[in-house]
């Protein structure tokens, strides 16, 4: 628990959201270093050497992304921060946005310098009202201090940053949907290629990164690539904001080097399972990941190992479920999320999520028949292969994994057996959608 923090350093410092406090704590020194002593390719090299990968879930190497944008001849270029945090279980960006907004701004400035962009946007989910206020204030402070705008720190580098509010659609976390929303359209994913690095916002080269990714950058620049790269596992360097919630005593977000075990995360950081209950399952990467069970307690948590265990780390959003919870209801809650958030473009996602919810609701009502469990499994496998974007491909994961690990609960519901576990009965207020 004593590893250096990159993302949430100074989180507890009072007033850290204010520019003067942030600067007093060493803020914007990385920017100064970059603007005064480094060239854009050198910045890219440091980020590459640190082996920083995107924190949005896909794990794409950040240095390589920036290099691709930098290489594009087309201008203007854009830097966009994805603050569309909305996957159930994920709340890692909110502290950055509300408490250390200047770290995001500094990271974006460094990214902009590296790729040759002079305009950037922080795209916030519509529900994030307070974070937006804080971000706007932070931007105004930075502008007043000459850290944003024209001729930053007298170096001749210019960068304009603004905040954009989308309007309530999880799909906007998908990068091309986010760009569509930013252009004022329904957030439906684009055909790729072209990729955003080549033709993103307004068909211009765009470095689109997660808030947390940007927040890593100032520390890497100041501390150098090597110490960062030395943290974590062989496959994934550095630290990660691990979100943990659900049935644990101390839900929260913890910055830990990659590779912490599930057991350590739950017991050492999150204070163990709530009220000393028994562990039942955990969704390690938010709503779109497959659940893991007790057998995975000693799994080192990085992208590689979690994938090997048949799930995905995603944004490291651990939702812990204790014994005594109906897994059919768990699956249904997550399935409803995807039905609600499917953009409706492709058949497998639009109609697949709908049918999965329909079948699970039948089971919950005791109207299901056992073979429908296999129908869900079969449909889910097609969705994973055929859906247009990541949302639809991942949507069936939680349901499939619940069936895989807790099939008997589904069978019991199909057989009409009463379920006394949490959520085992009918939803007390129905389905509002």
């Amino acid at each position: 628990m004593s590893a250096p923090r990159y993302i949430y350093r100074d989180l507890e410092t009072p007033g850290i959201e204010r520019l003067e406090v942030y600067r007093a704590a060493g803020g914007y020194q990385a920017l100064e270093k970059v603007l005064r002593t480094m060239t854009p390719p050198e910045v890219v090299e440091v980020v590459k050497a640190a082996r920083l990968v995107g924190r949005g879930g896909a794990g794409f190497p950040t240095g390589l992304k920036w290099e691709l944008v930098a290489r594009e001849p087309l201008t203007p270029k854009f830097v966009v921060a994805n603050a569309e945090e909305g996957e159930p279980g994920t709340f890692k960006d909110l502290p950055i946005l509300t408490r250390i907004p200047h770290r995001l701004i500094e990271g974006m400035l460094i990214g902009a310098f590296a790729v040759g962009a002079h305009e950037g946007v922080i795209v916030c989910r519509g529900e994030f009202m307070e974070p937006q206020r804080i971000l706007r204030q932070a931007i105004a402070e930075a502008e007043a201090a000459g850290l944003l705008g024209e001729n930053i720190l007298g170096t001749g580098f210019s960068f304009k940053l603004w905040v954009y509010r989308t309007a309530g659609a999880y799909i906007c976390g998908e990068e091309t949907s986010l760009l569509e929303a930013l252009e004022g359209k329904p957030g439906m994913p684009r055909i790729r290629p072209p990729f955003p690095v080549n033709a993103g916002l307004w068909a211009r080269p765009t470095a689109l990164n997660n808030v947390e990714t940007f927040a890593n950058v100032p520390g890497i620049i100041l501390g150098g690539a090597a110490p960062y790269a030395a943290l974590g596992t062989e496959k994934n360097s550095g630290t990660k904001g691990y979100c943990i919630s659900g049935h644990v005593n101390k839900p929260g977000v913890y910055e830990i080097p990659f590779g912490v075990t599930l057991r350590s995360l739950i017991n050492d950081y999150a204070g163990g399972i709530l009220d000393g209950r028994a562990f039942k399952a955990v969704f390690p990467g938010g709503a779109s990941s497959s659940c893991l069970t007790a057998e995975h307690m000693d799994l080192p948590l990085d992208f590689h190992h979690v994938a090997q265990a048949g799930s995905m780390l995603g944004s490291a959003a651990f939702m812990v479920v204790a014994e005594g919870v109906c897994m059919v209801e768990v699956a249904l809650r997550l399935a409803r999320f995807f039905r609600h958030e499917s953009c409706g473009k492709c058949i497998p996602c639009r109609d697949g999520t709908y049918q999965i919810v329909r079948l699970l609701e039948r089971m919950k009502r005791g109207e299901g028949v056992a073979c429908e469990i296999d129908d869900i499994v079969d449909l889910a496998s097609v969705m994973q292969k055929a859906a247009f974007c990541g949302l639809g491909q991942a949507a069936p994961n939680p349901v499939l994994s619940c069936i895989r690990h807790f099939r008997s609960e589904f069978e019991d519901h199909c057989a009409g057996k009463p379920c006394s576990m949490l959520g085992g009965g009918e939803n007390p207020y129905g389905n509002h959608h």
Partner: protein
Amino acid sequence: MEITIDGRPLTLENPMSILEAARLAGVDIPTLCWHPRVSVLGACRLCMIEVVGMNRLLAACTTRVADRMEILTDTPALRKIRQTMLELLLCKHPMDCPTCVKGGACELQALAYKWSAPVNRFPENPGAYPPVHVSPFVERDSRKCVLCRRCVRVCHEVRGVTVLGAMHRGYLKEIGTYFAQPLDRDFRDPFNCEFCGACIDICPVGALNSRQHKFRARSWEGVQVPTVCPFCSVGCLLSLQVKENELVQSRPRAGVNNLDQVCFRGRFAVDYVNSAERVTRPLLRRDGALVPVDQATAIAALVEQVRPETAVMALLSPRLTQEETADFVDTMAQLFPRSDVRAVCTMGLNAADIPLGIGARPWGDLDQADLVVSVGQDLTLFSPVAGVRIRTARRASGGRLAVLDARDTLLGGEADLWLRPAGAHLPAVLAALGALLVAEHPERLAARPDGALETVFAGAAPDDVEAAAGLAAGSLRRLAGEIAGAKNPIFVANRGWFDPSGQVPRLLVEIDRLLGGSEARGIMFLRTDCNSRGTAELVAAAEPEIDGEPEVLLVVAADPLGTAIPGSVFETWTRKAKFLVVIESTLTPTARAAHLVLPLRVFAEKEGTFLAGNGVAQQLRAALAPPPAVPTLRRTLAALAAGLERQVTFAPPSLVRQKRWSPPERPAVPVPPTPAGQARCLQLRWSPLSDNRVRLVPEADRIFLAPALEVHPDSLAALGLADGGAVRLSSGPAEVTVPVRADWRTPPGQLFLPLDPGNPELAAFVRAAVRPEGWPLSCVNLTGIAPAPARE
């Protein structure tokens, strides 16, 4: 690139999608959302394929081929996906295929037949959506919709209308309109349904249907006869479905001029051939009324009026085929040496006085244009498919677009530069444009102005013209800059009442010649009628000069009393003719005024040729058997000759096809009139509704509006007018009261009146009020006389 598809080797030169490559190779990959006319969406996932060595499946429509790709299109995994996609669609789809309009022509049926497994694991009663939305011509059934969004894309990308959209999200997504309004809700809105029916054609299922066609015939019944649209000069190809000698449906078919598109008239208005108002027998005026007579009596009545030396006048319309036109011209020359045959277009303008050196170029040229300049009035209202050609070419080429059109016909809003001078100012505007090109862009010119042109351009003062025409200062200079900056600009123009002497096309031809010199390929020119170009090649373009009353006037397939400006030359002749003979297929206002009406076959009963505006010759096929007493025009002419105890020789086909007459390559360009100010000036505009054929189609007045004073919504208050109220128009002694309509197509500050010349009150007003030389733009006084009724 060397690739294989299902083991078949294929060499490709150009980059393309896997789907396109497969189609080239003749491999059938199923699709639902993909359509060649619209952008790629990638939504249906039916076209998923495997690439050997890749661990995930790809959609063929959204994936580009790469060298050495080994593509598999039919594997168990792919079959599974296709089955599941279809199952997900079919489980919610109403299974009323036996009574569905699309039955037998439904893509979902065909896909299910080929790819579906006979299982349904998710059975559900459809009916989640309100069942049917209706409008006069298009019917929607959301329950059958597969959300392929082809209709949305064609409406937006091809037609520029954008009335359909994919509303809501996820499983609640539904194709619909703004707040689920019916399609005919509000014609004052810029983006309103034009009832082109492109959405009906492109819909793979029974979610969008033609109400006109519904329950008249199954898709496979009767015969499909390929023919040509009888309306404007674009020359759209049609396929007429005929069952038991009834035209049950008209649909576009692929053609060089129309791609696969058509407009309201080609699709719905051709239904006029089914009208009860057909002239099926000769009609002779007796005691003031037209009474049916046999052909012998009719011919005898005509023969009584003529002698070989009679100066028979004839007005023939470019709606006739090339063959009919030649027959008629030849007959007149042989029977009446002193006869005078003129061509009159649907607007009542001389149809043969336009220089022929223009416009003989394919629409495909637009794909190479880096700038299209569209000039005229209501260009895409007259020729909607011309708008489609400009729009789609631009989407493909990325070229720029400048529009000179007072009225908003959607192209203006899409343009990079849009100037909205009143039509009557257009000649002066073009002269000023020429002057600017000559004075400020000499390096771009391939020729110098000479002859009359020199005077025209020298006399144009751009700043004065801008001021008189109400254009923003400097806008003409910007347009000249756009044109000079373009390597390959193409001019597209149409003709309206605002331009009775054809100055707009003449000036454009000259500007085109200045830019292109001897390489100039001419402008594209849109005319009102299907065979305008052919008619102009066969009929001399004498200026109207006859004063007084024609002894005998033969009007063939034309309707000067219904469609020409009251008081104009051809209308006056028709009205004053001592003996008026009308050869016509329906009872037009002109026919009703005739002394003798002889029946004529409609386009669907004819074989022959139409020469589209750009010179493409296209064949009509007789789809219907005519009523028994309706002979061909040739037979009618032969009967007339026989009645006169003469014989006529008709030209052989080879001569019919030969151009007989052409005006000088470089016509004299008349000096455009000094523009008048536009305050309180009334611009008459022609509405397709005054075409008798269109009026015969029930509810056509929902598409083309009845006469009303059209004012931009923002200009109403300043003029003391109210939407839905009325206004008294007065000019000198003439007065008429017309309704007021807020109209988004009208520019702020201008006044339009879509004229129905067949309306006697309006005709009388126009005849009395409008100075003959100033048809298009005449000053009126306005008195608002009634408040708008409360809306809703």
